[in-house]
């Protein structure tokens, strides 16, 4: 048993040394720092302070399971119908539009936001940083 404990301590120490090297050399960003936003991105905390239109760019099945209250589903599959609804909503009361998908890596929100900027040139359109998960 003491031998296994010694092995465990050695593995933890070596891993910690590696992690420290990554942080000190600047190879990895510190997890506790706040990442910078790309152009056209907005944080959830900031988005919730303004009156806006949420657009859920995830597949409709995921939207059906859960979504941000009041969000409308708009993705590449239902583009025409959903865009018509969104335009109606936006023309009624023009306000910023925030598109979200499931995570930072999904990329759909940025693609949809880009397409929306082309179709709704006058609207203020953002993609949600970090995505949204129920």
């Amino acid at each position, binding site marked *: 048993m003491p031998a296994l404990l010694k*092995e465990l301590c050695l593995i933890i120490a070596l891993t910690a040394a590696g992690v420290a090297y*990554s942080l000190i050399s600047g190879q990895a*960003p510190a997890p506790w720092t706040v990442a910078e936003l790309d152009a056209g991105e907005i944080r959830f905390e900031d988005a919730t302070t303004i009156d806006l239109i949420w657009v859920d760019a995830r597949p409709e099945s995921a939207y059906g399971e859960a979504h941000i209250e009041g969000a409308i589903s708009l993705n590449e599959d239902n583009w025409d119908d959903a865009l018509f609804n969104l335009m109606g909503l936006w023309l009624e009361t023009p306000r910023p539009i925030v598109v979200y998908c499931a995570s930072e890596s999904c990329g759909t929100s940025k693609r949809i936001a880009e397409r929306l900027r082309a179709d709704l040139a006058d609207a203020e359109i953002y993609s949600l940083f970090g995505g949204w998960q129920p």
Partner: protein
Amino acid sequence: MNSLDLKALVLLVVRLIVAATFIMAALPKIQDPISFTASVQGFQLVGSTMSKWTALILPWFELVIGIGLLVPAIRRLSGTFIAALLLVFIGLHASAWARGLEISCGCFGTEAGTTTDYRLLILRNLILCAATIWVVRRDCVREISFSSLAR
């Protein structure tokens, strides 16, 4: 070559393959932790901060236990951690497969643009896991034999 030598040779080859797999998987992720963070987030199981911690610690842990499998002083526990980690990966891939996620597994870094063939991935990890368990068991048997000889 007698059967004992052959067994030792096979054990060494299997040990090298498992260790090399873990070392090769760890290095690109250590070099590019930001892309690996995105891969972790793709599994949609942990939040943003947790995925950053995972992307920072996991590659170094993989590297240490990968090399550790070749170092007598820590090879038993390294092997045990490798087998446990492979079981966790199998569970994660099965979960992503069940949820219909089309993501890159991030196993060997970014693998940009590639989506995961879950069946192949789970099969590969099962084989690696079985091989690792065999290596660890042989190490334990050898350890016990040496201890009883020493007495």
